[in-house]
């Protein structure tokens, strides 16, 4: 876990418990976006081949850091046979390195760069470092995590906007459930603090009049293992994924899509909404679909006859994006980690089943839901 409030779960949890908020700065010429960065991050610490750092952008460096820490935390640092490990990372792929492109194009008018292919090629090929493309290819996040970890199985980078990190966890979970692999390095990373991201958000009419959107960088990566493998090697388990679903509101209402994703994830887990002890919503102040998500959750949690006796009054909300900042595709996995910690704390006899739901919602209404459980629930399953 690499966030604006620390680089391990205990530190982040502690600082959140003390009420800390990530330091942020205003963005010139807009009042709708503020940015929070990770200070004192040294990529070199995490790269076994430091020369590769020049081929990486910030989000990839954060992803490598989170992945290296995850593998160490899982007790797998000394497991060298990694040919079957899958790597599934998500990033919004929105942090285009426009400064370098702008520098390469020089003071030409945008129209000439578009209309005159020869001019564009000369400027770009002549003034852009040939490594630029290698840094900016969308699949580099997964690729570099795979390289640095020597994780040599299937390697995927999902770029589904803000939901990509949660989607990566879900897709890795499906691969493990289907027996395709028994270990996956999965999570999300983003560092969307470049002019392209800031400009897009600052000009998004849906944010007008809302409180400032706190944009952040970060990464969180999990080691997912099949239950059998984890227990065979005596792994320290943080929790379990029981269900995953995604839906989209490309042509319909976001409320409905979010509701469908949540409902289907719970159904995949064999749970009902009344069993949710804690919930990590996607929304945060100024999130374009915050209201839609509220409506969807109201529908999901409204009283029904079925399972009404199990329905808690109100599941605990894990809502820290307003303090950590929204790290786009990394926020879902960050939320999932904090949700699992909350569920883990609910292990005392007599507590509600430690089951939770993590949601991610993208800017176009893409929705992903994960049904997760803490360790006490796994005890029931043994």
């Amino acid at each position, binding site marked *: 876990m690499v966030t604006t409030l620390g680089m391990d779960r205990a530190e982040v949890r502690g600082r959140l418990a003390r009420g800390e908020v990530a330091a942020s700065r205003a963005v010139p010429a807009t009042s709708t976006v503020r940015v929070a960065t990770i200070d004192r991050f040294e990529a070199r610490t995490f790269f076994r081949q*430091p*020369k590769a*750092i*020049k*081929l990486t952008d910030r989000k990839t460096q954060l992803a490598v850091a989170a992945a290296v820490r995850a593998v160490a935390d899982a007790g797998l640092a000394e497991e060298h046979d990694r040919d079957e490990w899958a790597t599934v990372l998500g990033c919004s792929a929105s942090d285009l390195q426009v400064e370098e492109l702008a520098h390469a194009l020089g003071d030409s008018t945008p129209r000439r760069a578009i209309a005159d292919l020869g001019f564009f090629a000369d400027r770009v090929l*002549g003034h852009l*470092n*040939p*490594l630029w493309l*290698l840094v900016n290819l969308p699949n580099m996040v997964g690729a570099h995590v795979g390289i640095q970890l020597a994780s040599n199985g299937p390697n995927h980078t999902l770029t589904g906007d803000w939901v990509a990190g949660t989607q990566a966890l879900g897709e890795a979970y499906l691969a493990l459930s289907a027996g395709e692999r028994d270990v996956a390095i999965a999570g999300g990373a983003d560092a969307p603090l470049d002019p392209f991201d800031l400009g897009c958000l600052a000009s998004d009419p849906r944010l007008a009049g809302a409180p400032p959107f706190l944009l952040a960088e970060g990464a969180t990566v999990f080691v997912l293992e099949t239950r059998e493998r984890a227990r065979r090697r005596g792994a320290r388990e943080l929790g379990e994924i029981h269900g995953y679903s995604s839906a989209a509101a490309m042509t319909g209402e976001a409320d409905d899509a979010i509701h469908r994703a949540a409902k289907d994830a719970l159904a995949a887990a064999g749970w009902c909404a009344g069993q949710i002890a804690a919930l990590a919503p996607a929304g945060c102040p100024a999130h374009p679909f915050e209201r839609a998500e509220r409506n969807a959750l109201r529908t999901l949690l409204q009283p029904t006859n079925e399972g009404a006796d199990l329905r808690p009054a109100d599941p605990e909300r894990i809502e820290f994006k307003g303090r950590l900042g929204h790290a786009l595709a990394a926020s879902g996995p960050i939320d999932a980690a904090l949700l699992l910690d909350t569920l883990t704390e609910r292990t005392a006899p007599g507590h509600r089943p430690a089951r939770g739901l993590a949601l991610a919602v993208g800017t176009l209404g893409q929705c992903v839901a994960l049904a997760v459980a803490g360790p006490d629930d796994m005890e029931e399953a043994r």
Partner: protein
Amino acid sequence: MKPNREELRRQVVSLVADALDRDATEVSPHDSLIDDLGAESIDFLDLQFRIESAFGLKFRDEELWRGSFDPNDRRWVVDGRLTPEAVERVRQRQPDYPWHRFAQGVTVADLPRLLTVDTMVEQLESKLTAAEAPKTT
């Protein structure tokens, strides 16, 4: 005005160190970019770009990496191996290179291993000299 050889060498050492993630004190002008400094093919693209940007010029094709002879010329290469005359020619150009690495002779495939900071400096110096020379019609 074109910098002198020592200044060029200092600047190229600095660019090589940055590109290959090394401290400048670790880079010797006679180090093989591949054998001693760990350069890979992708690093040669990066190095060329850095040198072109730093000195405001463009190298054509393999110009920056050109050696002492044309490896396609049969006078210098026979069956993929450098002739004794070719080896001697390269040794004269790079007397400080650790030639014990090629006790069994030098093949064409070995040629990239002969590239050093100084071979780049030499090509760069030629390029800068040519750029300074007055144009004749």
